[in-house]
């Protein structure tokens, strides 16, 4: 990384192929609550046949830019600059001309497929509507075209799908329908606004495959907006990075990941935990200090990143940088792009080697045996009478695990695998139906209301959604002071001081105590939630996807906070996440759940390297990795985790397993096999471990 290697030029003089040209775009919203400068200065180009990835964190203006291209901004927005679609300025068009363009020549795919589809219309009619409106097909031709489209987006059995309503389809299928609608009129420009954010990792992988294949099949330019660098690495040809409403860097994708020329880009890249299979997670996560330049502030004559930049100099404070060429096809908004190196963010600190893969015998602080939780009651055929017909949902079935003092147990699995139920059962929010749960030897009662005060203080929880974790009508100090009041014996004055200490320990000024949650950002809210969890000096903290709703740079801050607290206080953690990279960074041991059963468990590195359960293997293969050259074998699972009401006859994964060996998987429950190299590593599979190790040689990296 010490030299600048010029990458292949992208032939920027080929202007005839440019579909979208955005120059100096600025979008300002004038609202009763103030002026919001969503986009300050953005320029980019999309050519036919290429996929441009637009990446940035929340609030950087990327979605606003996409909506501006559609001409779909509300009346309160004022735009400056130009958006040229095939040479015509979108801003100058009449509404009728815009209507002609939209759906026909420019199409958009949105983030949430469930709200993008009309819930009262059959899916087939919705697609037909698009074709009939723009291409004026008659009914029969429209139906034919719909079938073709559904096949092209990988939905088998189009006859059944066209007759279905959106709620009868899974999230992945819904998103494919939305993509089919977007492609219906063979648009020239396809805009995609985070289309995979709400989907599971395995579903996301299949949708990304579809998007990647679209580039070859469809003669369109694609603008793909996302905050996930892994997704960008997989699908994009060129990348544009945005920060605080400005485009700060743009380059071909390999060039960007190998030679980033802007401090923010490097910061983003170093905030992502090393993906599993790419070497030990040996270094601490860097995080970008400070917070994003506020959208309400007037654009100063200076670099917007200057307050957070490690190489800020006087020139950066006095003069506003513009996008300047660094190489062919590579531009950066930094005066000193030449001097930008990964080391500007400081030497990566080595992590404490706290992970012993062979598990020294640490005393377990929490043990669970045979944990079981079903939801719902047996339904009766005639409401209150008659035979029992509808069994309850088997969310968690006979799970065993334990967590050692000061250790982290990571729980992974897709939605529906039972991870949240496990956390809620441990904490007592959802009473378990069966099973023993012991905290330091004491048995815990099923519901939190039945537990002693000490037990409640010892087991705390952090939730996924930081905004709803705090009462929106009450100031921050309420939750923290109440926790202190309940769990500690301090008097009022001492509680006030301790609350201030807690906030400072999570990096928030004590003046935040009087603020309402709505005045804080997502990351700050989550830190307040952490402060509340730390308040009672807990023995174990259950964190349910605590960073999933946060931006990458904030994730790193929160993860570092958790790790620091664990080191100091020797708190045990149960960390639930769907992001394998994060789980691997954080956990000492991992539990892989599928449909309420344990597929695999053991020390982190052992679980994430061969031999692994086929499900773990599929998860590892599906996760997007921020490296465009990552050579991953594609293992794709179809369908979703089943909602299981009946006991599995054989293996719980038999329905989707890519390594299914035959009828034995359907009829016989698989044995639990122990890895000879690591006594705590167990896999529940019919395939013997040696065979798995051989089969998975190409796909899962061997432990070093």
């Amino acid at each position, binding site marked *: 990384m010490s030299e600048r290697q010029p990458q292949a030029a992208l032939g920027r003089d080929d202007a005839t192929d440019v579909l979208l040209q955005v120059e100096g775009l600025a979008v300002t919203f004038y609202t009763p609550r103030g002026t919001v400068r969503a986009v300050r200065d953005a320029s980019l180009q999309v050519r036919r046949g290429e996929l441009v990835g637009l990446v940035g964190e929340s609030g950087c203006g990327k979605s606003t830019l996409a909506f501006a291209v559609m001409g779909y901004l509300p009346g309160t927005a004022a735009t400056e600059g130009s958006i040229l679609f095939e040479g015509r300025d979108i801003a100058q068009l009449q509404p009728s001309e815009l209507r002609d363009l939209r759906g026909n020549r420019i199409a958009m795919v949105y983030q949430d497929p469930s709200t993008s589809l009309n819930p009262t219309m059959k899916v087939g009619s919705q697609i037909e509507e698009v074709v009939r409106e723009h291409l004026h097909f008659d009914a029969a031709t429209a139906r034919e075209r719909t079938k073709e489209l559904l096949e092209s987006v990988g939905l088998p059995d189009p006859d059944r799908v066209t007759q279905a309503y959106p709620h009868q389809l899974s999230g992945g299928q819904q998103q494919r329908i939305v993509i089919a609608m977007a492609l219906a009129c063979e648009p020239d420009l396809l805009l995609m606004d985070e289309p995979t954010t709400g989907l599971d990792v395995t579903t996301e992988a299949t949708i990304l495959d579809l998007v990647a294949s679209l580039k070859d099949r469809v003669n369109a330019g694609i603008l793909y907006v996302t905050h996930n660098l892994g997704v960008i690495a997989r699908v994009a040809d060129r990348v544009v990075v945005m920060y605080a409403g400005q485009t700060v860097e743009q380059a071909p994708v390999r060039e960007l990941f190998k030679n980033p020329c802007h401090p923010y880009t490097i910061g983003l890249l170093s905030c992502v935990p090393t993906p599993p299979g790419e070497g030990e997670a040996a270094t601490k996560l860097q995080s970008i200090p400070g917070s994003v330049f506020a959208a309400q502030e007037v654009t100063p004559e200076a670099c917007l990143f200057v307050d957070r930049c490690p190489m800020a100099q006087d020139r950066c404070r006095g003069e506003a940088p513009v996008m300047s060429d660094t190489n062919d096809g590579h531009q950066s908004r930094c005066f000193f792009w030449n001097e930008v190196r990964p080391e500007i963010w400081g030497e990566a600190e080595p992590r404490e080697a706290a992970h012993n893969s062979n598990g020294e015998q640490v005393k377990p602080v929490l043990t669970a045996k045979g944990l079981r939780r079903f939801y719902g009651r047996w339904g009766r055929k005639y409401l209150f009478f008659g035979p029992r017909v509808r069994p309850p949902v088997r969310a968690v079935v006979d799970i065993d695990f334990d967590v050692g003092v000061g250790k982290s147990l990571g729980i992974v699995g897709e939605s529906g695998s039972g991870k949240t139920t496990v956390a809620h059962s441990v904490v007592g929010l959802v009473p378990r139906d069966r099973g023993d749960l012991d905290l330091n030897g004491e048995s815990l009662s099923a519901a*939190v209301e039945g537990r002693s005060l000490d037990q409640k203080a010892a087991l705390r*929880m952090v939730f996924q959604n930081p905004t*709803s974790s705090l009462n929106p009508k009450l100031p921050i100090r309420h*939750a923290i002071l109440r926790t202190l009041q309940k769990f500690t014996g301090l008097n009022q004055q001492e509680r006030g001081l301790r609350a201030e200490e807690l906030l400072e320990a999570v990096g928030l000024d004590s*003046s935040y105590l009087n*603020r309402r949650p709505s*005045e804080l950002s997502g990351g700050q809210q989550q830190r307040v939630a952490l402060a509340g969890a730390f308040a009672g000096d807990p023995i174990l903290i259950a964190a349910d996807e605590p960073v999933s709703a946060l931006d990458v740079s904030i994730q790193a801050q929160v993860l570092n906070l958790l790790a620091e607290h664990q080191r100091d206080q020797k708190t045990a953690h149960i960390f639930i996440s769907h992001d394998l990279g994060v789980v691997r960074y954080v956990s000492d041991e991992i539990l892989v759940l599928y449909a309420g059963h344990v597929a695999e468990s053991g020390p982190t590195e052992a679980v994430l390297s061969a031999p692994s359960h086929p499900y773990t293997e599929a998860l590892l293969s599906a996760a997007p990795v921020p490296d465009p050259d990552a050579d991953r074998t594609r293992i794709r699972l179809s369908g979703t985790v089943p909602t299981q009401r009946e006991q599995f006859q054989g293996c719980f994964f038999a329905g989707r397993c890519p390594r299914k060996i035959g009828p034995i998987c359907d009829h016989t429950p698989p044995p639990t096999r122990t890895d000879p190299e690591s006594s705590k590593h167990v896999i529940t599979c019919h395939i013997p471990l040696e065979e798995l190790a051989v089969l998975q040689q190409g796909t899962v990296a061997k432990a070093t």
Partner: protein
Amino acid sequence: MTGQVSTKKDQPGRHQSASLASVSQGLRSVLSLCLATSAGRIGFCLVAIHLTLALIGPLLAPYSATSFNYFDNGDVKVFLGPTLQHWLGTDQFGRDILSRVMSGAASIIAVSVAGAALGIFVGTVVGMSSAYKGGRVDEFTMRVMDGLMSFPSLLMALLIITTLAFRPAPAEWIQPFWQQLLIVFTIAIVNVPRVARVMRSTTLSLKTQEFVQSARLRGEPASYIIFKEILPNTLQTLGVEMTVRFSYAILLVASLGFLGMGVQPPSPDWGLMISQSRQFLASAPWVALAPAAAIASLVVGVNLLVDGIRQAQGLPKESAS
């Protein structure tokens, strides 16, 4: 609110003035909310007028509400149209209509407010507790509420009043107010299931939010969670409900008066005034119009005021925040 200095411990002597100051500050902020929008201003005026009438109406009225008025020659001034001396004219007994309207405000407003408030209070407690508890208790309670709601409100009111009004009151001192109390009680019963339904649905959606789960994890008892954590988030809905309930309460009281179940004559009761003037509607319409306009302006005023307050809460604050 931001901008406040974080509270340090007060010196003991400043407590009194601090609480007075905060009360007056609270009042001033409520006042500014009311007057911020045009809907709020109109509503505030109407409600203020009615409240003033309720409190000191008889004192302000030009004539007595019950005495007959005579010309100089001794004839009773019946069915006078609006004149300079009688702005709203006189009724069939020569009583000044303006004075009767002004004096009648007190009873109808007092009874409606009391009834609606009692109904809302009980309804909120029942609805929120039932939703929080969930399960069979919730099902059962809601079916009871459905049963109560299925009675037409006027019929239920008549039922209660006709059966109980002519029995002696449980205690001596209640007797003069017995009928009013029954009407209050009836309005409350009529409103409880409706309010309970609305508050239940709001609570159900809030119950699953993580801050409620956090409170459970802290070991807070159910009553604390319902009233300290969930209730502040339902105030918006509650405000709307209050308007609606109060409007219906007024109409119910007026209807009861119309049917002769309200305040007994000769005391002025708007509903009764309308009822008694039915016979003369063609010849002397002003006798009915005045009380009707009074009822309508009260209902409209309350609705506009609460609407205005809600709109004002959505606007940005003047101070830095």
